[in-house]
């Protein structure tokens, strides 16, 4: 009998809000899929505009090289236009986009006879790929922030691509672990272990700042 009672007001409102957000996202994905099937240039313009920073950030993290990331950025959108019919709108557009970008990086590394993503960093990584926002409100903050910036740059350039990739997808793009598994094509357990190892490798760089 208790089960038949209506849910508490706050819960039903939250449930409605969440379900309408999910429904909206699904509808948007279907619209994107339809537009891509038509090769609608207006839609592609809007998508490029909307995902520009996220896609470039992911590629810079993955390749460790800004110039290469910019080249693959353009290739990714061309591939999106060419293979748009393959996107069915059931998955989130951003996970599909990141998966395409990832495949292009792998293709590119194969063309250059590089064995894996890790080897990309050794070949093409540059120290200035990871620029950090420099808003410095006070001299004390300026010193701390400069230290932090240098720490992040050093730590990221030392990390291998697979760990950097998972870190950016989780903490920048805020994808769930399942979505990261879809993008990378790796099992969930592997994604988790890459995330732990990435954080573990990043952590020592902040030991001095903390002390």
């Amino acid at each position, binding site marked *: 009998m208790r089960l038949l009672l209506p849910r508490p007001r706050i819960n039903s409102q939250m449930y409605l809000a969440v379900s309408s957000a999910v429904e909206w996202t699904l509808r948007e994905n279907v619209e994107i899929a339809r537009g891509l099937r038509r090769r609608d240039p207006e839609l592609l313009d809007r998508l490029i505009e909307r995902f520009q*920073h996220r896609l470039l950030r992911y590629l810079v993290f993955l390749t460790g090289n800004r110039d290469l990331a910019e080249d693959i950025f353009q290739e990714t959108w061309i591939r999106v*236009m060419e293979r748009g019919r393959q996107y069915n709108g059931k998955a989130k557009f951003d996970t599909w986009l990141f998966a395409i970008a990832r495949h292009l990086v792998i293709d590119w590394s194969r063309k250059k006879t590089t064995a894996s993503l890790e080897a990309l960093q050794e070949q093409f990584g540059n120290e200035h790929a990871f620029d950090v926002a420099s808003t410095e409100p006070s001299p004390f903050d300026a010193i701390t922030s400069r230290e932090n910036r240098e720490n992040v740059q050093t730590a990221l350039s030392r990390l291998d691509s697979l760990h950097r990739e998972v870190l950016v997808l989780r903490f920048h793009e805020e994808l769930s*672990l399942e979505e990261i598994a879809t993008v990378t094509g790796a099992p969930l357990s592997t994604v988790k272990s890459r995330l732990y190892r990435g954080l573990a490798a990043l952590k020592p760089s*902040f030991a001095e700042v*903390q002390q």
Partner: protein
Amino acid sequence: MRGVRNHHERAFELLCAAFDGSITEQEKVWLAEHLANCAECRRQKEQTQAAIAALKTVSISAASDLVQSTQRRVRTLCLQTEARQRRMRPIWMSSIFASAWMACTTPYLWQSFDLTGHWLHIPDLLWQMAFLVAWFTPALTGAAVAVWLRPQLTRAVSSQIMRATA
């Protein structure tokens, strides 16, 4: 000693899981108790938080000229692909029409040319040649129309691309 190290390792794994939100209530309680008693793991937690916060400060943004040139390239390719499809459309249409024409009319055409040839006492080779010409006429007409339309379509599309990418 091994047991103590395992506790620290477990605490770090749970810390990472806590950042994901994939941690059970029981694990939360265990982690809180462990952190309350372990200064080393508390420091690790602070370092991990600092690492994640610092990671979020990495600001990589696409330059506007990169975005604009990508949009231009994609737009041009879209129009070129569409133009290719439009150029192919008359060829496909004429091919379909010609194939249908050939399939439907072959027996009747052959019979009528045969009858006419014998009635007018025309040599076999001649009426058979005439049959072939009549048989191929729709396909040849379709191909001629497609060839005639091609430059017009190309010109129209080129100007469209110029306008779109200007």
